[in-house]
């Protein structure tokens, strides 16, 4: 394992993408401590263009856009991480533990996965979120997690079914370990790299989904997220007025962040998968 990590860290491409992702994460983690209050109105003029005082200018209520952006990155990241982890957790239980049990339980889990897979995730999220009056950050994140596990469960299941036939699993079974312990402690470590990939993809897609529903005004009711900034842009027709410093930054951060995460997964896949490795 350590050899593989070393191989990865030596990869030039990975260093670049990792660097970009870390810069954005730091902007969200450290930024809010140094910027103004993002929701305080009229700290500057209305639609002031970027200057040394306001790095990204101000919005229609004279709020500091850079401060909004830093807070939005933090909140969007939070949603992404909580949603990503909960989705992977559900996927491990349904695609891992239940699939390992086999028989009717596996069949049932498979039916549930297929049913969830056919449903339009975003549409369900929209409907559910619209019916909740107040939405906290965590509730939105968990909702996203609840509806984004099916494809993960399916791919974990297919990997698990091939690992299940290995001899060490038979040994564990003979030694009398419970199914849950066998799956979590014995089988899953063998696909740790794969689950890590799923987690990264889960986080980046949760960030995108969150901003999607926030664009419609269905994200967290308090604070700023990247999608909520875009929602404000659309509602106040900032694009039509040519206020590029309001709608470019949040989208650009989204693209660069999710793009770098995606490229990281691609590089990991390329380096670790002997079939696609090119030296």
């Amino acid at each position, binding site marked *: 394992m350590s050899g593989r990590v070393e191989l990865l860290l030596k990869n030039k491409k990975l260093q670049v993408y990792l660097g970009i992702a870390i810069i954005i994460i730091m902007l969200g983690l450290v930024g809010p401590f140094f910027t103004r209050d993002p929701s305080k109105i009229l700290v500057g003029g209305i639609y002031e263009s970027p200057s040394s005082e306001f790095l990204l200018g101000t919005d229609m209520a004279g709020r500091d856009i850079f401060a909004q952006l830093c807070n939005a990155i933090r909140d969007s990241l939070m949603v992404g991480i909580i949603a990503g982890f909960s989705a992977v957790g559900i996927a491990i239980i349904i695609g891992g533990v239940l699939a390992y049990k086999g028989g009717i339980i596996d069949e049932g889990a498979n*039916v549930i996965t*297929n*049913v969830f*897979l*056919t*449903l*339009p*995730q*975003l*549409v*369900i*999220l*929209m*409907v*559910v979120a*619209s*019916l*909740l*009056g107040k939405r906290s950050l965590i509730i939105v994140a968990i909702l996203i997690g609840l509806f984004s596990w099916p*494809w993960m469960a399916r791919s974990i299941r297919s990997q698990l079914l*091939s690992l299940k*036939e*290995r001899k060490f699993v038979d040994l564990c079974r003979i030694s009398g370990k419970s199914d849950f312990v066998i799956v979590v402690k014995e089988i899953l470590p063998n*696909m740790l*790299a*794969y689950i890590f990939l799923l987690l990264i993809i889960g986080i*980046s897609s949760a960030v*995108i989904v969150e*901003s*999607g529903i926030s*664009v*419609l*005004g*269905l994200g967290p009711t308090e604070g700023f997220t990247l*999608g909520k900034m*875009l929602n404000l*842009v*659309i509602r106040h027709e900032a*694009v*039509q007025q*040519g206020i*590029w410093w309001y*709608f*470019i930054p*949040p*989208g650009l951060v*989204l*693209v660069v962040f*999710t*793009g770098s*995460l*995606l*490229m990281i997964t*691609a590089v990991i*896949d390329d380096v*670790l*998968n*002997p*079939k*696609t490795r090119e030296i």
Partner: protein
Amino acid sequence: MGQKFSRKSREKTEERRENGIKNILASNKGSLFTKKPFTRFITKKVFFLLLALFFSLTLVFIIPYLTPLNPLDIIMSRLAARPGMTTTQIETIYERYNVLFGLDKPLVVQYYLFWKRVLTLDFGVSIALYPNKVMSLVLYAVPWTLSLIIPVWVLSFILGNYLGSRAAFSKNKIVHTFYTISVCLNASPYYWFGLILVYLFAVNLRWFPSSGAYDPFLKVSLNPKFLLSVAYHYVLPFFSLLITSIGNWCTGMRAMTIYEKQSDYVFYSRQLGFTENRLRSYAQRNALLPQITGLPIILSSLIGQTLIVEYVFGWPGLGTLSYHAIAAIDYPMIQALFLITVGLVLIGNLSVDIIYGFIDPRIRTGYIGG
């Protein structure tokens, strides 16, 4: 992370697969319901889709009971706040909703009434756009949404797979640049991409209008002037969806084609001196088959994307309608919109399965359970 099967396990899987095939063949002979394997396959699919529909609609029915909000109270307070509403008018509406929803009756009866609404497609009068009927509003919006989603769905499949197989075979820099851009754009938020297009082509260059679906001075009809105006408004939302969806297919297609590229028949054909293009067309055909199974999944994510892009562009489809419905907590309309959207996705799913059955003979003859 590779597929490192031990030989033993592979033999076991082979054995299981053979047994499975035997079982399927045996059950085909015996069972009453299975006249044709293909019919059986489709029946199974329909069962799945109905289960999905049942499950999701029940979810939509239950959620409001888990929140402290009473939909009818909200509706009534909204109506009362509307200027020009008389008390008798509000009371008649209240009565009508009480009959429709049965809110004073036990939960089971409410559930029954819910399914009655679904099956008769009668969701009453809209709150957000009073006094229009919910169903007529929704049915007006459906063609607008379909006009965006179906072309994007099909075209992105064709373009994405073409790009993916090209990227697997050629070392051409241009192809790889296109490939990388498509993959990155696929990860990028489509609604933001739409905003960029508006900024460039509608605000700065003034080539296309920034919102709406037709010139508001024209009447909705099928005359050429109106259609031309629609086409003019269609460009930006269409491309902001299409360009971001191409990447859905490239990555998978590239991986599948690389896999096919290593197989014996490609190797052999290369030894025979076939051109790279010829090889690609062979590998592509085989790599394409598993891609088709991805179509339904992409459809269900595409419909969500379309709804948001519609809102960004003010396209008068289901997305903009949902936005109005959600903003006004127009409960019957939300239910109706949900029913129609999920219904569209499920119909799309089923049609892909049927097409797949025609393309892949193994499904038709029942060798694969689906």
